């Protein structure tokens, strides 16, 4: 009985030590010692602005790229063959296992996209866990980029701006009514995403 109690107390003490060390260490990853700029110091971490992880639209990402948003870095989490087929301009191809090399930098804004919510979620959790302050996920992934940016349906007051943004990236905005074919207006990542890509591809975008 006394032995069991001592064992349990020992486990509790070990947990307390490991928990306290976790607080001191901060992130569950050892910073590499390969250069001054890549080591995340406490001062650098303090300098990071407010943490925000949120979804953005493909149109928002397009505006950031067009406007040259400072510190923007776009990561494509799909497999390399999908990346080579088509990707968002300026995007870098990363497998999940390669994210450990993406180290936090002050003022940097990461934007992730793929065609898999779970992959986005895993990557976001990992990047936030190692100290990235601004991580955004493109709602709808590559499918949304194709439909919202490269082949948008333009109408109403926003038609001119949306059309100009689309043409900036070589897109072909359309004045077709959304009722004509619901597939072209869907940016949602659902079972029809492949169909949307194929449909858009058939239109020559």
């Amino acid at each position, binding site marked *: 009985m006394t032995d069991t109690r001592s064992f349990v107390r020992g486990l509790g003490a070990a947990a*307390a030590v490991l*928990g306290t060390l*976790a607080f001191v260490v*901060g992130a569950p990853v050892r910073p590499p010692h390969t250069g001054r700029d890549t080591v995340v110091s406490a001062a650098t971490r303090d300098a990071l602005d407010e943490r925000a992880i949120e979804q953005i639209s493909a149109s928002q990402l397009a505006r950031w790229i067009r406007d040259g948003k400072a510190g923007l870095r776009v990561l494509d989490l799909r497999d390399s063959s999908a990346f080579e087929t088509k990707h968002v301009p300026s995007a870098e191809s990363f497998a999940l*296992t390669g994210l450990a090399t993406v180290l936090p930098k002050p003022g940097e804004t990461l934007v992730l996209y793929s065609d898999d919510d779970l992959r986005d*979620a895993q990557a976001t959790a990992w990047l936030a*866990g190692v100290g990235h302050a601004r991580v955004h996920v493109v709602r709808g992934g590559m499918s949304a980029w194709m439909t919202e940016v490269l082949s948008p349906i333009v109408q109403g007051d926003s038609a001119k701006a949306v059309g100009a943004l689309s043409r900036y990236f070589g897109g072909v905005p359309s004045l077709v009514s959304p009722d004509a074919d619901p597939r072209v207006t869907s940016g949602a990542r659902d079972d029809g995403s492949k169909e949307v890509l194929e449909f858009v591809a058939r239109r020559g975008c």
Partner: protein
Amino acid sequence: MTAPLPLDVAGGTTPSLVVALGVGVAFGWCLERAGLGSAPKLMGQFTLRDMTVLKVMFSAIVTAMLGLFWLSWLGVVDLSRVAVPPTFIGPQIVGGVVFGAGMALAGLCPGTSCVAAATGRLDGLTVAAGFFAGVLVTGLAVPAMADFYESGTRGAFALPAALGVTQGTVTFVVVAGALTAFALSGRVERAMAARAARVRP
């Protein structure tokens, strides 16, 4: 990161399911050994007379949390390959309330009901049948409530991101909370037992 601990099972879905079955059986065995296949034992948590559930669950959480944190820090586990379910705030609040109400009514949760059923307890079989029926009904109802089902999505909205603190800070707070709860749980059990003794004629 090159993590030596393989998290993927070679060979596709079938080997993965076999591994999942093995993990599930081991989990069930641990639950049964902890006494959590018994509904009265679980109900003891709600009446604060038996804090076993809190001790077992908090021990598991702290072990997993510290294990993943330090194994990742040592480069043994690649955390980016550990699945983090996406958050859907409204639907998960509703689901949590329904789950809690069902657990309080039945005295068993899905995992413990399977354990209870596997050990031949009739209440376990009944609750397991009930939650399988609930899963079926919910699945059939999803198309009708798709807008709500997918509302409030926040991606992998884990505590570090939600609170704006590091993973280490969250780990420390949870460990401290668990150790405090462990220290107090014995006193709570004794106090409730003394109170019951006074009430008893």
